[in-house]
């Protein structure tokens, strides 16, 4: 899932200015992250009204990154949109841009910061899992990804900095290489770590448009 966090409300107010503003949320990732679901849209609406900023309406996009769905849903809110000069989008960076693409006459404002592609561990607790490198080889690392989960993306074993199973960069973060090591040790397959992993082909993630 795409993990987002709310921007500071005062920063949003600074950009929204006097409004009037229309709010768009997202039914998928931002809903689950509690950054752009029904509740957060309502909360934002009330908070802006408290600041004497006119809110002309709101919508929950399904999901915000779907261009055709956005167009269809926006048509149903034509009047509310016409009265606004800004659209505040409570979705990931992709969602914001899809809205931008169909909203040339409005200033489109991002209400969240997009963090990473990650796992929901429990409510409001997320951890990065994927860098979208274009060439998945987690199967060779016990289903664990050192590209996205090691801050140095090391492919040939741990650096010298892990301590008590944690990463030197973040003491809350498990050293992914320790997890890989433990898993291989359990299977008595530690020898697999001796194989030299060649340099990664980063060009696999360079193509920015695909028709599959």
């Amino acid at each position, binding site marked *: 899932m795409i993990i987002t966090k709310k921007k500071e409300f005062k920063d949003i107010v600074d950009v929204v200015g006097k409004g009037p503003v229309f709010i768009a949320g997202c039914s998928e990732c931002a809903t689950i992250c509690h950054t752009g679901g029904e509740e957060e849209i309502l909360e934002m609406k009330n908070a802006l009204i408290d600041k004497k900023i006119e809110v002309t309406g709101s919508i929950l996009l399904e999901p915000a990154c779907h261009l055709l769905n956005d167009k269809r849903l926006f048509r149903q809110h034509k009047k509310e949109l016409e009265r606004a000069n800004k659209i505040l989008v409570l979705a990931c960076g992709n969602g914001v841009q899809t809205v931008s693409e169909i909203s040339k006459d409005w200033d489109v404002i991002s209400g969240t910061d997009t963090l990473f592609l990650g796992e929901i561990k429990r409510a409001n607790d997320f951890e990065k899992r994927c860098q979208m490198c274009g060439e998945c080889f987690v199967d060779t690392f016990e289903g664990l990804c050192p590209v996205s989960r090691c801050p140095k993306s090391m492919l040939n074993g*741990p650096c010298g900095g892990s301590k008590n199973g944690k990463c030197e960069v973040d003491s809350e973060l498990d050293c992914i290489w320790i997890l890989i090591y433990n898993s291989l040790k359990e299977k008595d397959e530690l020898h697999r770590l001796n194989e030299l992993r060649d340099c990664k082909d980063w060009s696999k993630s360079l193509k920015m448009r695909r028709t599959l």
Partner: protein
Amino acid sequence: MTYRSNLERVLSDGKFAVTVEIGPPKGCDPNKIKEKAKIVNGWADAFNITDNQTAVVRMSSFASCCILKKMKMEPVMQITCRDRNRIALQSDILGAAAIGVKNILCLTGDHQSFGNHPGAKGVYDIDSVQLIHILRNMRDNGIFQSGDKILAGNPDVFIGAAANPYADPYELRVDRLEKKIAAGADFIQTQSVFNVEKFSLYMDEVCSRGLDDRVHILAGITPLKSVKMTERMRFFVPGVDVPEHIAKKMENAKDPKEEGYNIALELISEIKQIKGVHGIHITALFWEDIIPSLVKDSGLLPRL
């Protein structure tokens, strides 16, 4: 037999080698590094020039090596994967070899979040093992990482790597050393040794696998300058193991500088006895002026 560098010659002759680290200055004044170099000149077989160590911006390793070369001192150029991709790394290797750098030490690099530009984007296109392998292929097979041929001169350098006998998981440390040797490392400089007992166990394993015949291992020595520095090394520097008895000695010392110096002497004399250790690598952080006496008093140089 011809040797690529003085360091390779000393090690191949079976002599106990000494290398000393010189940290480039936080500025472009060449006199700063010349002054440091003058202090230690003649007191090591080669001099390590760090590459923006702890991710703090300093004069480049490459330029500092040029300055050392002009002073007729032999540098060990450190290069890290943190700030450069494979294109820049290979280009710098060619450039370094062109100006006569004969030893290159390949590192992944300290993470940028520890330095003075934590907002920097780390590169980490490749890791240290891959860098060692690339360098070996450039030197021995005349090919770049892409497989493209080198057209005008392979970099004929002595290849170095780092090893940490203390980091977790301990069981993997010798495997990782072996991997670096397989990738192409000719010599190894270890993390600073304070816990001799643990280092000795590590070296036993190294020797039992015959790795000491395949690579030259230089044990790291860092003289402790103060109680504060001891604490920092003990608790905040990742992968360093300062045992309690050493910390106590520093705490109880009337003159911590003198105590630190004596501890370093003791460590050197103990490490010299360990089978498979081929030399000492001294990193005296902001304390370069004690290196000549340390090297002399420990009997490392001049060689008898």
